[in-house]
């Protein structure tokens, strides 16, 4: 027997009009963590779906599992062989309980009249959650959980299955860094037990932390497989994108104009305290800090999702009264949340219909009908600037890869033509090539007079895109840096600001209160 648990060779998959996979190879050794990387739309998820029996590959491929012909034609076959998949778009049942969601599928091959044993189901589900150090009520319906918690439920399901191979398609894109750490610990444990893992992510740093081997895809083709020792980040990027992508620190001084937006004495118990910030015309303001430092909470309070206890807002010469997110939208504030994957996309509708949703009223012509031509032009413009692939405005959103779906969501918020845009982790789930495109787009928006506040925990991104950096720590602004004078070390020193805060409540704790409210 070979030491490969999984061998896929000459795998092709053609969708009507798209060759998503073209002669691809993926070989995974027993007990290794194998990273599968490539740009948005490179075919990663499609390859996984072939592996899982969701899609049948074109003729001519070779697919062996544990050394013998896999013979997998439907998802159940894969499950029975010990393959578990955590899909990018999750596959949970919102109307069922946590326990049922974790257990489901274990007995899909049993007779329909088999009795369900709730007790052993809960035991098993509880054990899987314990392993993930998660404390969730097993009886709670999954639709009442946060996206991050839902993601953990999926992972728990894979653990509960006693799988031999677990595939995780971008499991970390909606997890906080604390949860990501937990996941890594679990992956280490899996490895010790000899379980193989395929891990898909756009965060190369985390891949170097967990993976033993890389397989790179580009435009549906196999580029190569590499051991972690024989390659570095830059080389990987070059192989993924086909060219070098370098982050260059912003070296140009922005022509700063009038003040456009101001936050005065903003406080919210347990989240942030005494926040004062101003945004000037022509600049991108970055807000950074560790997870739990209150960045996202601040943005959400500005946007009216959870109201601040104290403080006022001021936009373009006017004091603002914002009690809800609707108010904020009416005042011209747009907020692109970090977890966009499942939000605000009508999957069966076309890209056009999704993108122009917020501006549909403005697009009406004299007859009060929607002007299809203008609509299409607008969409094509965003498709181009966000590099949505394939660039077909009429394609249904569910035919797009996960990352491209995210770009459509971003385009949707941008098309609303806000006066102030707050964008949270703008390049989460987006490949390294498209990242620079999004950065350019933000620059352009600023030039057009839109105020941009970017929240990001990726320091290279912060340093290359912004003009000014606010670093938050424990719910306060720990310091402000001019990007021209900043470097990673200076930012980290502020972010790690070790002075004891007055209020002892940890932002971590604040987060979990939110969870419990649900």
């Amino acid at each position, binding site marked *: 027997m070979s030491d490969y648990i999984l061998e896929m060779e000459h795998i092709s998959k053609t969708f009507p009009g798209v060759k998503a996979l073209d002669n691809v190879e993926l070989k995974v050794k027993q007990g290794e963590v194998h990273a599968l990387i490539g740009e948005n739309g490179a075919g990663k998820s499609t390859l996984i779906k072939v592996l*899982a029996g*969701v899609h049948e590959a074109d003729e001519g491929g070779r697919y062996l599992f544990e050394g013998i012909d896999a013979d997998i034609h*439907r*998802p*159940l076959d894969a*499950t029975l062989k010990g393959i578990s*998949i955590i899909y990018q778009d*999750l*596959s*949970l*049942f*919102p*109307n*069922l*309980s946590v326990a*049922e969601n974790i257990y*489901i*599928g274990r*007995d*899909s*091959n*049993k*007779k*329909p*009249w*088999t*009795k*369900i044993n*709730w007790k052993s189901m809960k035991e098993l589900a509880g054990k899987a959650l314990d392993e993930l150090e998660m404390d969730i009520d097993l*009886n*709670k*319906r999954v*639709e*009442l959980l*946060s*996206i*991050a918690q839902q993601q953990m439920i999926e992972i728990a399901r894979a653990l509960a299955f006693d799988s031999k191979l677990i595939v995780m398609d971008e499991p970390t894109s*909606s997890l*906080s860094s604390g949860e990501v750490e937990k996941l890594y610990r679990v992956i280490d444990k899996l490895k010790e037990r000899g379980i193989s893992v395929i891990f898909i992510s756009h965060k190369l740093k985390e891949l170097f932390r967990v993976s033993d081997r890389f397989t790179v895809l580009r435009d549906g083709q196999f580029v190569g497989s590499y051991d972690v020792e024989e390659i570095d980040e830059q080389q990987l990027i070059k192989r993924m994108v086909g060219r070098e992508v370098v982050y260059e620190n912003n070296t140009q001084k922005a022509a700063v104009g009038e003040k456009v937006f101001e936050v005065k004495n903003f406080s919210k118990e347990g989240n942030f305290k005494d926040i004062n910030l101003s945004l000037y015309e022509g600049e991108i303001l970055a807000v950074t800090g560790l*997870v*739990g430092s209150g960045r*996202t*909470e601040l943005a*959400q309070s500005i*946007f009216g*999702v*959870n109201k601040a206890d104290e403080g006022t807002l001021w936009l373009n010469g006017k004091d603002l009264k914002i009690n809800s*997110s609707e108010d904020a939208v009416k005042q011209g504030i747009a*907020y692109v*949340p*970090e*977890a966009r994957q*499942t*939000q*605000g996309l009508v999957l069966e509708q076309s890209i056009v219909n999704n993108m122009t949703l917020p501006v549909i009223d403005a697009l009406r012509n004299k007859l009060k009908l929607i002007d299809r031509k203008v609509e299409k032009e607008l969409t094509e413009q965003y498709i181009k600037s966000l590099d949505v692939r394939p660039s077909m405005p009429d394609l249904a959103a569910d035919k797009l890869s996960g990352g491209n779906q995210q770009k459509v969501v971003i385009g949707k918020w941008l098309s609303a033509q806000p006066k102030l845009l707050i964008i*949270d982790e703008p390049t989460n789930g987006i490949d390294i090539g498209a990242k620079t495109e999004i950065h350019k787009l933000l620059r352009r928006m600023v030039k057009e007079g839109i105020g941009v506040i970017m929240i990001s925990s990726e320091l290279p991104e912060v340093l290359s895109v912004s003009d000014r950096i606010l670093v938050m720590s424990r719910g306060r602004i720990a310091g402000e840096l001019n990007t021209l004078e900043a470097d990673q070390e200076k930012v980290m020193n502020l972010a790690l600001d070790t002075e004891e805060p007055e209020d002892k409540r940890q932002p971590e704790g604040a*987060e979990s209160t*939110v*969870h419990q409210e*649900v």
Partner: protein
Amino acid sequence: MKALLKQKEFSVLAIVIIICVILSFVSPVFLTVGNWMDILEGNTVIGILAIGMTLIIITSDIDVSVAALTTAVAVSIGFMFQYLPDSWFSVVLIFLIAPLIGMLLGAFNGILVSKIQIPAIVVTLGTLNIFSGLVLYFTNGNYINSTQFPQSFMAFSNIEILGIPILIYLFALVAVSTWFILKYTLIGRSVLAIGGNAQSSTRVGINFKKVKMFVFTYMGFLGGVAAIAQTSYTTAVDPNGLMGLELTVIAAVVLGGANIHGGRGSIPGTLLGVLLLAIMQNGMILARIDTFWQNVVTGAIIVIAVSYDEINHRRNQAKLANIDVKEAS
């Protein structure tokens, strides 16, 4: 989870109780045991059908052929009675054959929906017409009355145990076993799962087509049981007696908290929905309100309840979207 589910069922329960209180003032007869036996026995057919419909609606489908299907089975029973001897054996035989015929008719719906993948509303509208056309052809629209029934069946329909009519036991049996199926069997969970998320269900290895096939066949099975109940209750077969009943059945299910979009619905909820419609009907009869006003009021209640539910549903979803934003960190 339970809190929310219960809340919903509680609100139906609360309305039921309020109406009961009002009606007990309007009519002294309302709260008597005899009246309640009448209400329950008279709604056994609707109740049994609503229980089957609950499963179909949970899978986000609909079956508008139920009343026609039940009538078709009832007519078959009527014809068979002409040849069956007067013995308990005939009653047993009917209990075997009627559900079987129902299952076959239901399976026909099921095949069209799951294998050929025609939308259920189209399929069942078609079979509704086929079933009722055949019924009219074979009966010429005429009653089959009890003179042709075996005495043993008449005796069966008069059985009371502890002062409770046999049909109420039948109703209870159907309700308890279907509740059990939904809560404690694999197939029941699969029904809920495909209603919750069809794509996920195939990914975890649930056979979507088989489950669809099951809900329609089970609906047919219960249609057969309902046909026996109907024949026993009216001691006759009326080819037009159940016309339009499918709407009441669907209304009861939706009133009971099942959602047309699928995924949500429960047997206790549906029972409350049936009860709510039943006591309103009963109350208006006791209060001597004209039949057409009865229909208007019933219709209005259904519209209000369903819109309320839909609005609530959307509001909850909006809230959830907010929570997502809130927790995106």
